[in-house]
């Protein structure tokens, strides 16, 4: 997928109107991301209310215990539905490459902000790719186990042992997903400019050069190729 081929917003990815800023996420991608994010927050809060007695008070946010129980599975489905098109958009750019494994092996340099020592990164770094796969796996697990423990409609079709282990799997997938998202949110706070990328859509050239150099190179090469040459 080329950043320069998709509509006008993409075409002027590196145009001077944006003072050299580069389009990282289109309006569609940003909308989609925040739909997933909102559904996640609601699903996590309502799920946590049912997970630990200390958090049962969160059910008040959803109109009490029964309403939390009624709404939670539908919110979960909404998250899944919102994530599907997002996964189709970004899935192909999250394939692990040899340089990603090298990047992961140098995790010390990653957490100590020594990016100059790391291999070049494409549109997504290995950490972001792992977040992507964790979300895909967890949502799959949550869907399958969630159907089995959805008492109002489906539990009756499953033997007790499946419902019991389904509940364990559901809690485990939710735990991994919540921790993954905590890491994801922290990474956005840590790497300055990331939040702007997902709220305003654009990043500075310096940001792209520092954090996603291979992607920056790709975009600049395309921009240069598509521009009419003076000679």
């Amino acid at each position: 997928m080329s950043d320069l081929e998709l509509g006008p917003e993409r075409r002027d990815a590196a145009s001077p109107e944006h003072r050299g800023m580069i389009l990282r996420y289109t309006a569609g991608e940003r909308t989609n991301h925040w739909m997933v994010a909102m559904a996640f927050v609601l699903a996590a809060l309502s799920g946590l209310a049912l997970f630990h007695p200390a958090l049962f008070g969160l059910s008040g946010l959803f109109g009490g215990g029964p309403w939390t129980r009624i709404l939670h599975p539908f919110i979960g489905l909404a998250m899944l539905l919102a994530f599907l098109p997002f996964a189709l958009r970004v899935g192909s750019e999250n394939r692990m490459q040899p340089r990603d494994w090298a990047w992961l092996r140098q995790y010390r340099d990653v957490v100590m902000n020594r990016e100059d020592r790391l291999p070049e990164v494409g549109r997504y770094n290995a950490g972001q790719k792992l977040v992507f796969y964790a979300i895909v796996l967890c949502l799959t697990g949550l869907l399958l186990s969630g159907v089995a423990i959805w008492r109002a409609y489906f539990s009756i079709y499953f033997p007790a042992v499946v419902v019991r282990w389904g509940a364990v799997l559901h809690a485990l997938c939710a735990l991994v997903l919540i921790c993954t998202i905590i890491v994801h949110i922290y990474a956005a706070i840590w790497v300055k400019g990331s939040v702007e990328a997902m709220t305003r859509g654009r990043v500075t050239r310096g940001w792209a050069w520092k954090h996603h150099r291979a992607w920056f190179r790709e975009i600049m090469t395309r921009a240069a190729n598509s521009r009419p040459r003076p000679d």
Partner: protein
Amino acid sequence: MALQSLDIVRRSATTSRSPQIREPSGGREVAKLIDTTKCIGCKACQVACMEWNDLRDEIGTNIGQYQNPADLSANTWTLMRFAEVENSKGDLEWLIRKDGCMHCADPGCLKACPSPGAIVQYANGIVDFQEENCIGCGYCIAGCPFDIPRISKKDKKVYKCTLCSDRVAVGLEPACIKACPTGALVFGTKDDMKQHAAERIEDLKSRGFEQAGLYDPAGVGGTHVMYVLHHADQPHNYVDLPADPRISRAVLLWKGFSKPLGLAVMALTALAGFFHYIRVGPDETDASDEAAAHELAKRLEKAP
């Protein structure tokens, strides 16, 4: 079915202690003893349960057995289950078991319930659902080793035998006990019931039922509904009475240490992020990065 006149010792989804200061003199553990060897399958207990608790189940269809209705439901809290079993001598035995909540000392339903106070255990051992706190998730159904709680289609709340906690609270015996014409059902303190059962078992053994015994399964800490069985070595013959009921390992894992551990893992993940920020700080881009980016861009423009 809330009853303030009974002392609550355990409450679902509650990590703090229940009020403990009272030491009720009548707080000794009670039990219902079901003597399957005296039961004639008349279903008076079923009728009494319906009457006292104002329950009317839907009229079902004949399933080719005396058992009616076909299964426990939100409106049927006790049910005579009929088994036709051929014994080793080739004789037919008609084994009848009054099914319903066993009122476990260690109740799987209470352990699984996420709603504070929706399931309680009284000092006398009765496990009671308090439907006004029930959120209808059905976790208790997964938690129960005896497959007892049933969710109502009408109100999405879960129901089961209360052991007539309302009657017991005012010194009456449960309605089913009152109705039993043969004395197959008896009610009293758990100790008395055990003693009574021991006498019955001795009698049964003298009549040739060598495997007669008491069903008070230790896997759930004992129960407050016990059976005298003619064949205590074959509980499964009594329509799948489990030989060694236990709370499933899945439920213990899900509702045991995984709950605090899960919260701790989430909190530690967030704390790790916070202290990373405090110690290492943000990853920012500065003018030198912008300059380097412009240089690279210029180079790419010249020699694509």
